[in-house]
């Protein structure tokens, strides 16, 4: 029986559970002997002119090796400002390595202090004397559009990137009902449990070796090569165990570039690990869109037209976040057959932390908007939200289907997914219970929220994404090494890739080692993000193994003097045998002994894949306090063929929890002057174990035709489906009181206020 599709516990766990993983800050490495530590001095002010920086007291403090500021980056061997990552972004918004004249967000880097030990760095940082004349800060992205206060006067605008759209109202002319509403998809912290960290050393040979907690060593290397302006062969990036990323550890952040550069300047190995408070202002944030939706249709439930107008808060320096609306656009119509789509987006700079990818990146925002819009429309025409969805879902026979947002959906069966979850919860019965509670006027009301979603994963060649590669080598001792361009940080690649190899060779999992994240060993690859690993990296491993079997058979045919067509793999013995003559056999190990047995394969995905699913959330809302509690969430998440249900469900659990967290609890907040209010774990409402129930997971598998495993991505699906389901449930719980919408997170205060507003305080 094939091991594929079976529940296999992780082979990486015993080490993680007994000695702990080796994260960047845990590294014990000869090359880092005698390392100094770097501490960054950051701006406490959101927007202002730097009038003076005095580092003399810090420079004289105990243990201080060196102090760096903007002045040190000029001239020979200096460091140039980092341009925005995409050529289509507005020019003149480069980020200087150290803030020079202007600080643009709380957390902007002003100086770096190098010390012999870590505690000394904290002490010395407090001695740096910086004078800043505050400027008015732009905090609200809607206001940033006015260009009254400019972050980059030389650019002449705060707008970084736009997707222009013609808003012609006539598309709504034949609609019985039209609903318009502003919806805020709030700013979130990715908050991986391991903060950012790096270590760097320049060798005698003039090459940089740097260890970075990251999701894609090859991309981090490219960023470093550009920032340091050195030849590509001068940089080696190594990825130690990485304690979560969720999109915020893609590439090499400015801090990581500075650590590498400073290590060169002082001629000593250097280490950096940020504090959590530093992480919550320094690491990129996610989401943060102001969306205005307009949805129109007929009273029979058919949606005819949909408009989405997005303002993307991109934070102080343009990063990938400014491009998120492009993903939102591509997924704007979701699972529905909506022919008339109008979309516009404007990405703007504000005096806040930069925005980049966070689990789902642009797609959760699209799903939240359309799923909220469907509920608003349903409420307006007085139809059940499940029924409205059924009347608009794309039917299974339309695939491949090209949306008005430009996506080409590969496969799906949305109605089946929705039916599966509604059957599981006995939807009519739930509605009846809800009606009874309403009739009784119970203080605690029941809310039922639905979402049906589709998302895009594993962007293929067409999106300019890197192809994924794998090398599989069998060694004479019967062990196997797999090299992959993907990069685990919790997903379980060691187990998953070993399963793919073991399936075809019969070599046991514990004899297979998966290597990743070393650019000398694996120069190419796209890392792990966008739910791409299995469907690209895993497929490359699978195909390399398939080819390795063919090569092994050809060699065995000669050695065994048999016809290649008569040869089969005996997985019990990890050998090739002549069919029907088990005594004539040669093992893969024996073949490797005679001649190197190794295959490298590059997989080219024909296109992105589109996982989908349906979620139902059941909440209870205390109408007196406004407190909403999630009682149950039932989901079906179809990401094609499942390799290992244990890992598959694990990804869903984490994703669902992050979705629930966005709907109910989490938000990064700033005051009107741009001061962060949630920059510690004491202040950021990070989801804890008491705030979620166990999850009910159902399964559906609709394979993609785009790869031989039939696999799509599952990394982000849970987040995309759960967020609107839970938000819809909270609104639903109080909709009979006249409430139509409550912004996320649906805190007690917001829910209570919404009830008061709807009832004029009569509830």
């Amino acid at each position, binding site marked *: 029986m094939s091991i594929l599709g079976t529940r296999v516990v992780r082979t990486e766990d015993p080490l993680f559970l*007994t000695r702990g993983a080796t994260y960047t800050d845990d590294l014990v490495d000869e090359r880092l002997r005698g390392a100094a530590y770097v501490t960054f001095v950051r701006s406490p002010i959101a927007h202002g002119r730097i009038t003076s920086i005095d580092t003399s007291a810090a420079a004289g403090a105990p243990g201080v090796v060196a102090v760096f500021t903007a002045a040190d980056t000029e001239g020979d061997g200096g460091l140039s400002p980092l341009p925005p990552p995409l050529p289509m972004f507005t020019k003149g918004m480069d980020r200087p390595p150290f803030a020079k004249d202007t600080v643009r967000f709380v957390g902007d880097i002003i100086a770096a202090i190098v010390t012999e030990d870590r505690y000394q760095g904290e002490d010395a940082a407090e001695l740096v004397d910086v004078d800043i004349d505050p400027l008015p800060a732009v905090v609200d992205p809607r206001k940033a559009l006015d260009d009254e206060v400019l972050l980059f006067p030389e650019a002449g605008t705060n707008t970084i990137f736009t997707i222009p759209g013609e808003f012609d109202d006539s598309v709504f002319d034949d609609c019985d009902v039209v609903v318009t509403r502003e919806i805020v998809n709030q700013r979130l912290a990715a908050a991986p449990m391991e903060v950012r960290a790096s270590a760097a050393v320049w060798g005698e040979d003039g090459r940089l070796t740097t260890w970075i907690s990251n999701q894609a060593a090859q991309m981090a290397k490219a960023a470093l090569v550009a920032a340091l302006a050195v030849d590509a062969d001068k940089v080696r990036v190594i990825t130690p165990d990485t*304690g979560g990323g969720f999109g915020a550890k893609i590439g090499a952040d400015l801090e990581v570039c500075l650590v590498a550069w400073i290590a060169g300047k002082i001629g000593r190995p250097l280490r950096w690990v940020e504090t959590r408070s530093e992480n919550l202002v320094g690491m990129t944030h996610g989401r943060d869109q102001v969306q205005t939706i307009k949805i129109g249709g007929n009273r029979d439930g058919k949606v005819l037209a949909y408009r989405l107008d997005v303002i993307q808060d991109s934070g102080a320096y343009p990063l990938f976040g400014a491009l998120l609306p492009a993903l939102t656009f591509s997924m704007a119509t979701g699972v529905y057959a909506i022919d008339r789509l109008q979309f516009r987006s404007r990405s703007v700079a504000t005096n806040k932390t930069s925005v980049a990818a966070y689990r789902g990146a642009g797609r959760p925002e699209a799903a939240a908007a359309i799923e909220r819009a469907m509920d608003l429309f349903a409420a307006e025409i007085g139809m059940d939200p499940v029924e409205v969805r059924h009347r608009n879902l794309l039917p299974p026979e339309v695939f491949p289907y090209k949306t008005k947002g430009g996506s080409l959906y590969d496969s799906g069966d949305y109605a089946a997914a929705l039916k599966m979850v509604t059957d599981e919860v006995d939807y009519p019965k739930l509605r009846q219970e809800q009606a009874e509670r309403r009739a009784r006027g119970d203080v605690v009301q029941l809310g039922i929220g639905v979402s049906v979603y589709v998302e895009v994963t594993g962007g293929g060649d067409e999106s300019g994404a890197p192809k994924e590669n794998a090398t599989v080598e069998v060694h004479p001792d019967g062990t196997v090494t797999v090299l992959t361009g993907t990069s685990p940080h*919790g997903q379980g690649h060691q187990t998953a890739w070993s399963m793919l190899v073991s399936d075809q060779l019969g070599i046991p999992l514990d004899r297979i080692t998966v290597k990743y994240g070393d650019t000398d060993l694996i120069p190419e690859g796209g890392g792990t993000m966008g739910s791409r690993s299995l469907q690209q990296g895993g497929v490359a491993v699978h195909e390399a193994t398939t080819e390795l079997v063919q090569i092994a058979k050809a060699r065995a045919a000669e050695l065994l003097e048999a016809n290649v067509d008569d040869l089969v793999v005996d997985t019990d013995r990890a050998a090739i045998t002549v069919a029907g003559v088990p005594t004539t056999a040669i093992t893969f190990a024996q073949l490797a002994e005679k001649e190197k047995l190794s295959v490298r394969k590059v997989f080219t995905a024909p296109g992105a894949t589109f996982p989908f699913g349906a979620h139902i959330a059941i909440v209870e809302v205390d109408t007196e306090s406004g407190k909403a509690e999630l009682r149950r969430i039932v989901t079906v998440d179809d990401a094609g063929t499942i390799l290992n249900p244990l890992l598959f469900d694990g990804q869903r*659990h984490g994703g669902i929890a992050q979705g629930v967290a966005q709907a109910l609890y989490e938000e990064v907040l700033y005051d009107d002057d741009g001061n962060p209010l949630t920059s510690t774990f004491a202040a950021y409402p990070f989801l*804890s*174990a*008491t705030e979620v129930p*166990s*999850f009910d997971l159902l399964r559906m598998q609709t394979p993609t035709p785009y790869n031989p495993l039939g696999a799509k991505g599952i990394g982000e699906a849970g987040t995309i489906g759960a967020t609107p389901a839970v938000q819809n449930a909270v609104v639903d719980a109080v909709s009979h009181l006249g409430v139509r919408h409550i912004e996320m997170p649906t805190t007690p205060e917001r829910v209570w206020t919404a009830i008061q507003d709807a009832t004029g305080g009569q509830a």
Partner: protein
Amino acid sequence: MKVEIAVNGEKTTDDVEPRLLLAHYLREVRGLKATNIGCDTSSCGACTVLVDGESVKSCTVLAVQADGRQVSTVEGLAGDDGLHPVQRAFQQEHALQCGFCTPGMVMASVGLLSENPHPTEQEIREGLEGNFCRCTGYHNIVRAVRRAAEGADA
């Protein structure tokens, strides 16, 4: 200042700064890097260890306060006969992904089960409320603690 701390049964005497946190002592002085540090506000529990058998966030304690005490970290948990039942249950139930919260989560679970050997789901969730995990959604962590409690680790 001189401290004598028994970590996982091994006693050493070290000279430490009075302000050195127990978490840093374990990591830097004793070289035991499994205990992680996830925050600076004693909120996340990544640094949880047992001090005289009770679970404690090691970033909230100074090394000097642990003088003369027994400290247990995840490195000392497995016996000669293999993984501790909680460790085994964590693997069986896939209660870890990136592994960063795991040493603290395992030690908090060991502490929880020693106080309450048969907790309900709600008691497990409340017992682990001070331990953050970003990866698992807590679902499988709760299952693992239950499994360990039920002794279904075979």
